């Protein structure tokens, strides 16, 4: 692309971004659905950079659909060296820096409630969706810019550059409440393929001598627990609904954790309630990984952790509001047992 043409495009897009069309809401939703479908159903192999305020890393993603199942492998190429592989049954997270492999069963087969809501009509109560005009370009491809702006401070915003032809997100930026970017994912190379060989989904980390931490086994042998969880957060940002509830076995512990999943159609928040910590009382803890934040606190000798793609204040509020409900394992004479 010539220098002059690039400059023209830059000026045009910069101007156009100031005037997103209002009727674009439906269009934006359609684009997001197209994108989700592409991400889930197509075969592709690409390199992308993942940037946060701290550093930028190059990663590779290989996605393969086999017998209706989505398989993929992500690997950090020049940073942590970590690798995540989703096979048909499990998710393996290889952490060479810790010489550990974490194994989880795939959630799509274990949840007690049905699948996540796709962005439904209620979405625009919480997010403002807009799609930019045609004519933007990124890396030599025609793209549409989709804006997903949160209407309150409990959520993050997203800006997506979707390939016109495939709806693949060539670039995506997560923004905070004031619109500042906190995480950028940008493809530097992407190949859509007819076929991906099975070996491309195989891990490349040599895990010899690594510790395998499996949490997925022995679920059947767990003692009986109320299957819908004995805990509930009292406070949730508007629009977040319970979409799944399951038991998360904890290595080395006979009691599993409750795992509640809430979603507003765009972001998801998990709440884990784990039986009393043997390592002693834990003060409040906060951590963040890219655009995901986690907050842990203790409630009646249980450890409650909220984790999700939302601001730190949100997970903190939620974790702090978790209470046991009637009939759960909290003693009858404790103050909490009279909570709603």
């Amino acid at each position: 692309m010539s220098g002059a043409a690039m400059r023209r495009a830059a000026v045009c897009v910069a101007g156009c971004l100031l005037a997103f069309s209002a009727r674009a809401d439906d269009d934006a939703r359609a684009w997001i659905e197209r994108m989700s479908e592409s991400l889930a159903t197509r075969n592709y192999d690409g390199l992308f950079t993942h940037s946060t305020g701290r550093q930028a890393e190059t990663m590779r993603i290989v996605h393969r659909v086999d017998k209706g199942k989505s398989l993929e492998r992500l690997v950090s190429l020049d940073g942590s060296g970590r690798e995540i592989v989703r096979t048909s049954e499990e998710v393996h997270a290889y952490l060479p820096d810790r010489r550990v492999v974490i194994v989880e069963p795939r959630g799509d087969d274990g949840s007690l409630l049905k699948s996540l809501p796709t962005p439904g009509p209620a979405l625009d109560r919480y997010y403002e969706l807009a799609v930019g005009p045609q004519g933007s370009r990124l890396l030599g491809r025609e793209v549409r810019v989709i804006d997903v702006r949160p209407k309150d401070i409990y959520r993050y915003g997203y800006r997506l550059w979707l390939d016109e032809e495939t709806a693949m997100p060539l670039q995506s930026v997560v923004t905070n409440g004031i619109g500042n970017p906190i995480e950028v994912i940008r493809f530097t190379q992407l190949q859509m393929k007819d076929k991906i060989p099975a070996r491309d989904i195989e891990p490349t980390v040599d895990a010899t001598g690594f510790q395998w931490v499996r949490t997925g086994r022995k679920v059947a042998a767990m003692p009986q627990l109320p299957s819908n969880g004995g805990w509930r957060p009292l406070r949730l940002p508007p629009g977040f609904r319970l979409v799944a509830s399951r038991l998360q076995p904890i290595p080395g512990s006979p009691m599993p954790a409750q795992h509640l999943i809430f979603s507003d159609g765009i972001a998801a928040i998990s709440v884990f309630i784990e039986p009393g910590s043997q390592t002693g009382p834990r003060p409040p803890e906060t951590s963040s990984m890219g655009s995901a934040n986690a907050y842990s606190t203790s409630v009646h000798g249980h450890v409650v952790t909220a984790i999700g793609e939302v601001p730190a204040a949100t997970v903190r509020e939620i974790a702090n509001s978790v209470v046991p409900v009637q009939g759960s394992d909290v003693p009858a004479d404790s103050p909490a047992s009279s909570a709603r």
Partner: protein
Amino acid sequence: MTDQIREQLSALLDGELPRDEMDLLMRRLEKDPELRRTFGSYALIGETLRAPGGRVAPPSFAARVTAAIGDSPASVEKASTTRAVSVAQQPQHVALWKRPMVRTALAASVAATAVLLFRPDVAPIAQLEVTPANSFAMSASPTPAQSQRLAGYMVAHSQFSTPMVRRNVLSSLLAADPGITRVSYEMGEAR
């Protein structure tokens, strides 16, 4: 004059040196170890910016490789001198740097690191904001068991992320070491 040569080195590293300038530069490089060192340093700068952390090559490394290859008489001669010296230094890695170790404020440097993004197709994005939790990172190091617990939660959670954000969640897991900080929640949220 030397500035011009080093500028060519810089362009060579970026793959932007015209071929006709390469010949002379290559001849110079072959003769001048300081130029080679500079080239290596420029490469290290890029590596550090893109992916900091992890082991780095000691200054003598490239010369060791050349010696092991037995490339040409001239460079072997130079290399073997360096090699002899570096072998003697081998047991004392501390000798690699001369400045005394200074206790550093890691938290400050983490918060201060900014990545400038400036794309031709959008208005300039001044800085990637460091989320509030980050500014307290490193104040206490998590035990491996805690990091692992959190990583396990992240993996379990990622299964339920919407497709739109799942890649963000998984890449965050790949990139970050889940840093756990101990913060009383009053201090928690700067905005």
